[in-house]
């Protein structure tokens, strides 16, 4: 099904009578249910052909978002759900991004239970201690940034008090990232020694359902004189299926992590630093060739407004694999293993004009050690309170096929989205 004509049809479907803001209409008090959302059409195409995938389309979908909020008693119930016709997968999908009940326990504890998107940490599109699920496929296909964060079914408890606030998120059933599966983008397989795009799409076995196979994430945080300090701990699994069983089936390796971060103003801008120690629970010695090793991850960043309406952000990130010699000596694919230190530089440039009517953003990932890059230009035009248009690209390249962005060299794409908020 070709979705192009829908771009022309949407306006007639959803064009609502312009609600005049009468002088005395200040809206209802927030007691009843509030409904809102958007309709969006998105189209994206590969810039080069991928020999493994016939379809040049990387995005072709029509999406209806419904958001609702109501407050029975002291509880806030939130719903955010998408209904999608996805022409790339040739399928109708429904996705609940948020269905939660939020309430307070006593004076200091907030509870949020249900399906929800969660975020913490200081990185800009670089994640160390944020081990909540990400949807890289949506991100690479040019869906809204919001979709980089995938929802998970969790219970979040936050206790606000001195001397430190405590945030605890329990995800009873492991929620992995939405990883590359070969459906929309091909990906590198060390077993094949090159890119693959299997049919049916690649799917790794998830850990058995048990209490101890749930995910436990903890954050202690406090802001003192504008400085945000945080400590993190996590017990669960690597979010991507980077380990193998003895029969070489991909699986998620058990993971624990400890970390810390600081974000503070510095001169004209904001400085952030974050560190995380990843413990590969099934391979502490680093000698099991089928399981990832321990890692030390480090991030430092600075962001400032260089000129009015022009913001610059820079980050340096390094992933250091521990017991590296053990990894290389025991690896069946020593040539495809990551470098001891994977360095990554990111740069974000944002320019706003016409009171935020136009936003140009350019985000660049560049790894001098992996010799690969990912460039992400996005232009957003906000026509009015209802209509917006987003056009952008996802440009990948690299010297080798086995690096994170290098495997996507045939996946570079350009896309356009039109959205109507109601």
């Amino acid at each position: 099904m070709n979705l192009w004509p829908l771009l022309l049809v949407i306006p007639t479907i959803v064009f609502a009578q312009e609600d005049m803001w009468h002088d005395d209409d200040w809206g209802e008090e927030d007691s009843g249910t509030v409904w809102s959302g958007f309709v969006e059409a998105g189209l994206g195409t590969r810039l080069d052909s991928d020999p493994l995938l016939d379809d040049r389309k990387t995005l072709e979908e029509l999406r209806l978002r419904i958001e609702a909020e109501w407050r029975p008693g002291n509880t806030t119930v939130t719903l955010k759900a998408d209904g999608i016709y996805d022409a790339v997968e040739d399928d109708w999908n429904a996705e609940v991004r948020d269905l939660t009940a939020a309430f307070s326990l006593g004076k200091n504890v907030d509870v949020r239970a249900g399906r929800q998107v969660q975020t913490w940490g200081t990185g800009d599109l670089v994640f160390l201690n944020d081990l909540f699920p990400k949807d890289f496929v949506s991100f690479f296909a040019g869906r809204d940034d919001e979709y980089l964060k995938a929802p998970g079914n969790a219970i979040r408890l936050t206790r606000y008090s001195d001397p430190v606030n405590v945030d605890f998120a329990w995800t009873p059933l492991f929620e992995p990232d939405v990883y590359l599966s070969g459906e929309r983008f091909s990906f590198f397989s060390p077993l094949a020694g090159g890119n693959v795009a299997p049919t049916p799409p690649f799917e790794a076995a998830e850990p058995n359902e048990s209490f101890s196979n749930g995910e436990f994430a903890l954050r202690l945080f406090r802001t003192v004189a504008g400085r945000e300090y945080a400590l993190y701990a996590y017990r669960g699994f690597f979010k991507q299926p980077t380990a193998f069983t003895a029969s070489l089936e991909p699986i998620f390796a058990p993971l624990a992590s400890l970390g810390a971060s600081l974000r503070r103003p510095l001169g004209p801008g904001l400085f952030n630093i974050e560190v995380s120690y990843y413990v590969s629970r099934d391979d502490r010695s680093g000698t099991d060739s089928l399981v990832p090793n321990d890692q030390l991850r480090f991030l430092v960043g600075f962001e400032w407004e260089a000129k009015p309406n022009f913001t610059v952000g820079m980050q340096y990130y390094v992933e250091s694999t521990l017991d590296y010699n053990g990894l290389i000596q025991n690896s069946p694919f020593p040539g495809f293993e990551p470098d001891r230190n994977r360095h990554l530089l990111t740069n974000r440039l944002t320019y706003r004009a016409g009171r935020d009517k136009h936003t140009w953003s350019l985000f660049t990932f560049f790894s001098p050690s992996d010799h690969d890059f990912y460039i992400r230009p996005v232009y957003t035009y906000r026509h009015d309170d209802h209509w917006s248009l987003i056009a952008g690209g996802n440009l990948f390249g690299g010297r080798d096929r086995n690096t994170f962005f290098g495997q996507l060299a045939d996946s570079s794409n350009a896309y356009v989205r039109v959205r109507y908020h109601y």
Partner: protein
Amino acid sequence: MSIRFFLALATVTMGISVHAQALTDADEIVARANLAAYYAGKDGRSEIRMIIRDAQDRQQRRQFTVLRRDIDDGGDQQFLVVFSQPSDVRNTVFLVDKHIDRDDDRWLYLPGLDLVKRISASDKRTSFVGAHYFYEDVSGRRPSEDAHELIDTSDEFYVLKHVPHDAQSAEFSSYVTWIDRQTFLPMKIDYTNPAGKLYRRVEVMKVENIDGHPTVTISRVSDLSTGGATDMQFRFIKYDIGLPESVFTERSLRSPPSDWLQRPEG
């Protein structure tokens, strides 16, 4: 008639005579205007809607509730801004820790990503959510950032000229304010750019007395060079409601304090 009554009467009369006597110290006028415009009561709440009109007269709207708490009169303050309209910014929350001796701390909560984004100190004279108002207009510009000069005193207004100490810190080279001599509210502000051109104007369209405080209830900021303006209307204003410090924390970004955001009765 008791002696107390006479004392009270004397105080009132003296009060009036003090007002009638024109002030001559520019810094003192600015300090009093700052208090009148930003520090009425110990705290307060207001619902605000903005109608943003561009040069082609296309309209956009924003509606939000502001909670404010003063730590010291004329000193540090806290603001919490919770958006209710339009739908793409609904539940976005903006938190400001305003400081007198250093840059303000500002955070923006984006509910779609569950992201607490921090805004850098330099980013303050840019559009506030698409309006002609700047971030800095929401919480106020520190008086110490400019040199103040009293250039005229009329029956109604003190007219002052302000020049930034750091010319790089703002897009204007100077601005002139008309400060009401009775209420000390700045009624008009004209901004001049380095080319010497008047390009921006903030005007008060309506003042009402609320809980004993003269309060701006309609204001407008106009872009005089390209056209377009934003009207800002304030409703459901209440002062001294007893806002605790805990309202102005990360907790309120993720879970806006509905008890305090509720519209007051009457």
